[in-house]
Structures are given as structure tokens and as C-alpha cells.
């Protein structure tokens, strides 16, 4: 049952082979058994999950089911879910019970999906290893001594360990794609504005985008049908016709032009990763695709530009966590300024504080032009690179991450090394493009390697088609870690 696709689960439920309550209980039992070590979930609520499952069974009995009705999902703990503790991986929100549903949560609820629990993540989505979470490290199910990636590390581990059918993530600089790659699953970051950010706790508003994480491109397409769509509560949500993301899955890839950015295959790329990606490209050639070398000349500036813009926005977005209205407040303080200082010093972890300080600095009087404005200019140049590139190709491919999953604690002391693990993903966020990662083999230490597929704006359906056809021809996405 735990190896079934969403489509298969849906037909099992429709055929009354299993009830949603039974399926939910099955996952809850697995979570109870495996989560204490893997730590993919921060918060579980059996009563809420089973109540939803019961309602889903009723809906199925009434023949009112939609494709995801009754299927157990997990939600990244960045999404507010009414009645659920919503921590964003931070001590600051350790006891925060959300009084409302995020757009994404509301959409899954409407579809009759089950929320098994809230998944672990780097604190306020700031991190690439899930090690900045206040709620502890997450183990990579493929090797429990390694990181799952981040910031959607809990989601990636939960999907890989079959602790849910699929789950949600968010991606500001690679936070869906990098953990998907490191845990051997599929993940899609849609075009900026396709999925509403309403109720998703903000890290860097101009970059944050929610997306699905699952075991196959087909699963992601079904989830996109639920998550995407205009929402008037988010001013950056794009007003577009609803689309069926499964509509072109079956399309053959004959004539597909794949662009390979030369900057993604140079120094810094692990040989094992490079080899797996190369083999994947060869597979695509067999499927009828042609390959063209392209250049993204400004992509080398994406990491420095990102580490100006994202912290700038974050420094402002996180100002609301001040101990006044909700969340953590220091137990003792002498006056207002002391309350602010102690609350924020105690409530935020080191990486969050580092980024707030960077962001505050780059926005300060006298530095704004040199940092923030310059980074914005670079951002436009990076977007322009992609516009040029898409004149010559339909999709761009390359590695998702320069290496496979590293050891827990390995990069903890060196933030710059950690930041470089998103070197291939960040430019996509800066340009607002859709990007995805799918498993394409194994590298050193038998750890999964991810292939990154970058599409043009609103080309999600095409990208899912490109991924799905590969997954029909290969079985990397069906491999499961041992011992789970």
C-alpha cells in the first residue's frame, strides 16, 4: 500500500479496497514506529487526522470524492493550519496554534485530503540541511547519519521513508529541489505566483513559492491541480485560467530541446553527481530529445545576490516576532527594549539571527545602493540570461545540488559552504521560473542524485511531462531506502 501512487491509492479508496481511516491509521502507525528517529514530523494530531479520514470516507461513500480525497499527506510546518500548532521550525512559535488555514491547507482540505502532521524544517526555512530546526535534526532515510537537505527536509524524509503518500514544501532558494534530490524523491517549485503564499510564513516574500513533493512526477501533477490557482488574498498571486497539470504527461519527448548550461557542469560539481546527470541526459536523448549547450553567464552571481535580497526581506518579515502579540516572549525583562532584545535573542536560532543581521545591514542607510539595489540589478540580469537561453531550448537541465547528502554536522560551522549547496537552484528563484528535481541515480555512498529540470514561465505541465516520460523509462523514483 505504501508504494502505491496517488492515482492507485485513489482507485483503492474508490474501490473500497481500503478506507481512508485505515490508510491514515497505517501511516500514523508507521510514523509512530519510525519518526522518533527520523524526526520528519514536528507535530502530529491523530484526532484531527482521523476525523478528516472519517469525513473523507463519508465523501467517498457519497460518491463526492475528488482525486486526492482520503489520501494522507503531510504539510510543511511553514503553513498555518487551523487548530494545528504551526512552528516554522522555531522556538519563537513553539506554542503557536494557527487560528486560520493557509491557502494551500485550505485547498487540500477542500479536496478531502488528510493532513497527517506538520513536517520538520530549517528554522523559518533558513538552511539547506534541516539542522537549524529548533525541533531537532532530521535523518536522511537513505543513511541515518546524513542530512535530508533543507529547508523542506522533514517533508523530503517523510516522503522517502513512506511516512506519507506525498507532502508539501516551499522553495526560496532551493528548499524543495535540494532536499528532494538528497532524499531521492521528486519535487516541483512552480513559477512564482502560481501557488498563493497566503498563510505560508514568509521568509523572503519575492522568492518564496510553495510546491508539491512526492515520489513521481505524476503525483506532483495531481497535487498541482489542487495547490495552484489565483487567490485574491495574495497580491502576487497570478490571475490565470485554471489548468490541468496532468494533461500532457503522456506526450512523447520527440524533438524536445534540452539546454545544458555550461556553468552548471564546471568546478565544484561532484564527479558522482555529474556522472548520474550525464546518464540521465543520455536517457533523454534515447527518448528523442536533442541537447544544446547554453550559457547563463550571470548565474555565478546568484548566490551573493540571493544572500543580499533574501536576508533583506527576511529581516523585515521576521520583525513581527517581537513577543508582543503571540509566540515566545522572554520570561524576564526590564523594559520594552529589553523585552524585544531578550525575546528575539532567545527565540531565534543562530542562522536566523545571522540572516536578520545581514538583511538589516544591507538595507541600512549608506549601504542600500551598494548591496540591495545592486543585487536587484543582478537579479534582472539573471532573469535576462534565462530569457536568452530559452530562445535555444525548451527546458534546461543540470544537477540539483553539487553533491549528494552530506553528513549531519559536517557543514554546521561553515555557513558559506552550506550556502553553496544551493548554487544551482537559487538562480531559478531569482528569475521566478519553475524548477523541479527528480531522482536520476545514485552517487558516492549510494546516496541519491537529483536531476534539475528548469522550465520557462508557466511551463509546469511541460516539465511534468518531461519528468514523467523519464520516470516511465527508468525506475530511480521507485527505489526505496532500506530498513523502512
Amino acid at each position: 500500500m505504501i508504494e502505491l501512487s496517488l492515482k492507485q491509492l485513489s482507485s483503492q479508496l474508490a474501490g473500497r479496497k481500503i478506507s481512508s481511516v485505515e490508510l491514515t491509521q497505517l501511516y500514523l502507525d508507521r510514523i509512530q514506529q519510525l519518526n522518533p528517529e527520523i524526526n520528519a514530523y514536528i507535530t502530529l494530531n491523530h484526532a484531527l487526522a482521523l476525523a478528516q479520514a472519517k469525513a473523507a470516507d463519508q465523501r467517498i461513500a457519497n460518491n463526492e470524492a475528488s482525486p486526492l480525497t482520503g489520501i494522507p499527506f503531510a504539510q510543511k510546518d511553514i503553513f498555518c493550519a487551523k487548530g494545528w500548532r504551526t512552528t516554522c521550525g522555531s522556538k519563537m512559535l513553539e506554542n503557536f496554534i494557527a487560528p486560520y488555514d493557509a491557502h494551500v491547507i485550505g485547498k487540500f482540505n477542500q479536496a478531502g485530503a488528510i493532513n497527517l502532521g506538520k513536517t520538520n524544517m530549517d528554522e523559518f526555512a533558513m538552511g539547506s540541511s534541516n539542522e537549524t530546526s529548533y525541533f531537532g535534526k532530521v535523518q536522511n532515510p537513505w543513511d541515518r547519519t546524513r542530512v535530508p537537505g533543507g529547508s523542506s527536509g522533514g517533508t523530503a524524509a517523510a516522503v522517502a521513508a513512506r511516512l506519507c503518500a506525498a507532502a508539501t514544501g516551499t522553495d526560496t532558494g532551493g528548499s524543495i529541489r535540494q532536499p528532494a534530490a538528497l532524499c531521492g524523491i521528486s519535487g516541483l517549485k512552480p513559477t512564482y505566483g502560481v501557488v498563493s503564499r497566503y498563510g505560508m510564513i514568509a521568509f523572503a516574500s519575492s522568492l518564496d513559492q510553495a510546491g508539491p513533493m512526492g515520489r513521481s512526477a505524476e503525483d506532483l501533477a495531481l497535487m498541482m491541480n489542487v495547490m495552484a490557482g489565483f487567490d485574491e488574498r495574495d497580491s502576487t498571486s497570478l490571475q490565470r485560467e485554471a489548468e490541468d497539470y496532468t494533461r500532457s504527461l503522456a506526450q512523447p519527448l520527440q524533438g524536445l530541446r534540452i539546454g545544458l548550461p555550461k556553468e552548471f557542469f564546471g568546478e565544484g560539481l561532484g564527479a558522482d553527481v555529474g556522472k548520474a546527470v550525464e546518464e540521465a541526459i543520455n536517457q533523454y536523448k534515447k527518448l528523442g530529445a536533442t541537447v544544446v549547450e547554453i550559457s547563463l553567464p550571470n548565474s555565478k552571481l546568484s548566490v551573493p545576490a540571493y544572500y543580499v535580497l533574501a536576508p533583506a526581506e527576511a529581516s523585515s518579515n521576521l520583525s513581527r516576532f517581537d513577543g508582543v502579540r503571540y509566540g515566545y516572549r522572554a520570561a524576564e525583562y526590564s523594559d520594552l527594549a529589553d523585552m524585544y532584545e531578550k525575546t528575539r535573542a532567545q527565540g531565534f536560532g543562530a542562522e536566523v539571527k545571522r540572516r536578520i543581521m545581514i538583511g538589516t545591514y544591507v538595507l541600512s542607510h549608506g549601504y542600500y545602493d551598494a548591496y540591495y539595489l545592486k543585487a536587484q540589478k543582478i537579479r534582472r540580469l539573471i532573469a535576462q540570461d534565462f530569457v536568452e537561453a530559452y530562445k535555444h531550448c525548451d527546458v534546461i537541465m543540470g544537477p540539483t545540488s553539487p553533491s549528494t547528502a552530506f553528513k549531519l554536522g559536517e557543514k554546521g560551522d561553515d555557513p558559506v559552504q552550506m550556502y553553496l549547496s544551493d548554487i544551482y537552484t537559487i538562480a531559478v528563484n531569482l528569475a521566478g521560473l519553475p524548477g523541479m528535481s527528480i531522482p536520476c541515480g545514485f552517487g558516492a555512498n549510494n546516496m541519491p542524485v537529483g536531476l534539475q529540470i528548469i522550465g520557462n514561465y508557466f511551463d509546469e505541465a511541460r516539465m511534468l511531462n518531461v519528468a514523467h516520460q523519464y520516470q516511465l523509462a527508468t525506475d530511480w523514483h521507485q527505489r526505496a531506502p532500506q530498513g523502512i
Partner: protein
Amino acid sequence: MWRTSISWRPTGINARHRGFEMTWEIVIGLEVHAQLSTNSKIFCGASTAFGAEPNTQADAVSLALPGVLPVLNKGAVERAIKFGLATGAHIAPKSVFARKNYFYPDLPKGYQISQMDLPVVGKGTLTIQVPAVGKLPAYEKVVGLTRAHLEEDAGKSLHEDFHGMTGIDLNRAGTPLLEIVSEPDMRSAAEAIAYAKTLHTLVQWIGICDGNMQEGSFRCDVNVSVRKPGAPFGTRREIKNLNSFKFMQQAIDYEVQWQIDTLENGGKIQQATVLFNPDTGETRTMRTKEDAHDYRYFPDPDLLPLEISEAWKNEIRATMPELPQTKQQRYVAEMGLSAYDASLLTSSKAMADFFEAAATGADAKQCANWIIGEVSAQLNRDSLDIDKCPISPQQLNGMLKRIADGTISNSGAKEVFRTMWAEGGEADAIIEAKGLKQVSDTGALEKIVDEIIAANADKVAEYRSGKDKLFGFFVGLAMKASKGKANPAQMNDILKKKLLE
């Protein structure tokens, strides 16, 4: 006519400063926060109604819960456009919301959404009528507007009744404001107040702000500096949050005196924000430039740039009422009123509507005199606004027509007015009931005059021998004999004729 440089003349001038009035020039600029009259807040659907129980109008966005996002209220933008149109200002086809970052308990997000580099309304002008002060005549002046931008208000910190703690009320957080910034064009407190009043009238006139100063719907920050005429601008100090014109006058007077005193005693002015204390009539430094925040403004990534099309502007333009300044010009050109009287009659839309209705088919100048004179005096005495005037414009119009056609004299009209005010009724009915109709029957008037001449032969002889001043004496007798009802002009003619016969 307008003057660029009017020196300040304080009342009760300090002997020490005798003669300084020609040596210091006052420079004033205003920043006004006008609360826009939308039903809901600028970035969410919570109500903006005044006076609700604390935090009953604080929804998820007002509370800045994690994950909430701002959505711009179109009504607030429409009001900003109206203001831009009313002041002949540049309305930006594209403007940008920016975050102003600072920590304060009544600022729930830790930043205020405002506009910085690209405001919705750019440069415009406001024409003001400065009233006569002492020997200085009234005059007109055009004040430059630097910009007007949209922003959200903060909540309120409540320091009483919380046992040493501070209460936070977020009902007001997110209320839409239009911050209107003037050029430093004012050269006296009188000009500053005329500007503030004109602006206050305008925002109500075009229906974008209720103008309620007690409830904080129209708050003024006044930047004051002094300099020697011709010198560069002096260092300014900003008087914050003045919510009455009376306080504004007092605060400026005090501040100017303080700055002049300081400079004349060899001191220097430090740029500062000051508060006015109405109890002491003094201004007090709140913070100096050294403690100024670095607000770290940057474009708000949660909001798209605000785009305003020509079509949208035109749509709004079509709904705009005739503006006070246009009316003033019309009153002067078409009705022959003075610019100052025209400005008084356009001090509110209700006043202008009243005037225009009352003046229909009547002598506009006479109508203006009645409204500025008797009507306004009575309204003041009874503490009423023009829209609560017990005499309708139609009633006043009826009376004016009877003055014009000679049915009643001015003294008769005053009697009609008093009766209308106290008891109501139409002019004709009152004239009839009180017998106020003038006697214009030539025969009857001649009869009265003949009798007076017969009874006062000696005075007639004196008059005829050249004592012209006695004419008034005969008029008095004639009016008395007619019981005040004689048509004065006609009576004069007959008297003159008969006395010279």
C-alpha cells in the same frame, strides 16, 4: 496678489525683541495625515469605524499573524487620485509601496507600509486666502505641494488602567492615511493656518476624509524654521500631531519665539521633533536627529507596484464636484464678490450649496453679505453648522427677493430674519403678519411729507436757507410718521423735491 515674505508680528511683543520683526523670516511647511474615509482598512477587510471596543476591529492582518498578506483597498487609491486631481498634481502612473521598518508595540508587523521613492501623488498646488491681520490686508497665495502618499496608520498604546503595563489597541492599525506634504512655502502662522484650513476644507469637499480632528482624522505636523531674509533655510524643528487650528497657532507662535530667542542669545537650533503641550502652551523636544531611526525603507515585496491608468483617472474625474477654488473664481468673476468673501462662502461644501441656493434669482452680493453677516453670526451664537441652519436657503432667498423688489426695507428684513430664525415661516407670510410692507404709494408718502413740511415751517426755512444737515431730521420724522414702513429711497426723493419747492 500674494507676498513671499511676511514677517511675524507677535502679540505682546517682548521689549527685548523690539524691532526684530524685520530681521527674522519664518519658514513653515506642513505634513498632514488625512485619514481616508473608506469603510475598511487599507490592506484588509477590517472595519475603520471609530470608537469600537479595543481590538474588536483587529483581524488576522491587523494583528500581523504569521503568514498573512496585505491586499490594497481600491477605495483608498481612488481617494488619493481624487486628491491629486483636486490639486492639479501629477498622479503617478506607477507608484510603489515601501516598508518603513521600526519596532514599536502598536506597530504589529514591525514595519509600516508606506510609500517612499515613488508616491502616488506628486507635485501640485493649493491656493489659499490669507485673512487680514491688523493692518495687513487679506491676500491670496499659492502653496506648493511636494507629494501625497498612501500609508497605513499604527495602533494605539494605552498607558492607563493597566497596572503599570501597557495596553495595545490595534483597531486603528491599518487605517488608510494620505500623507500630504507641502513645500516650505508658508511665511507666517496665519499662512500655515490658512493652508491647513483650506486643505481641511478640500479633503472633506471631495469626500475623501471626514475631517474630524478630535478623532484624529486630520493631523498636522508643522515644520518651523527662521532665517534672516535672503539667507538659506534655517534648521527646522517639527511640531508633531497638532489636532486643532487653535493649537497650531499657539504652537507655531511659541516655537517661533523660542527659535528666535535661542538664535538671538547666540544659541543654535538642532533639528528635532517636538511635541506641543496645550496645557502649558509650550513645545518640548521629543527626539533630536541623533536618535533618528534608520527606517531601512525598501519596496514591499508583498505588493505589486500600484498602476493608475488614464481611464481610471478619467472615470474618477467625471465624479468630482466643482472645486472650492473654481467656485471662488466664479463668484468673483460672475457675481462680483471679493476674493475673501468668496473664500468664506466656500469654506465648506454645505456653505457653498447654501449660498448658491439662496442666491438663485437674487442679488448675489446682497445674499453673500447676509450669509457672511447675519447668518454666520447667528450660527456662531447658536454653535450650529450651516447644514443645521434653521433658515433654509429657499426661505432666505424669499426674503432677499422682497428686499430687492422694495417690499421691505433693511430694517424690515432684519425683523423678518429674526422671526424666521426663531419661529420659521416664509418671508411673505411674516411680512404680511407683522405688517412690514413698505409704503411705496407715492400719494401716501407725499401726504406724509406735506404734513411734516406744514408742521415744521421753521426748520424748512432753515433748510432752504442752506442748512443741508437738516435733511436727516426730516427723514427721521417721515420714517417715524410712516411707522418705519416707508420705502426709504422713494421717501428721500419726495422729501428732496418737496423741500426745494
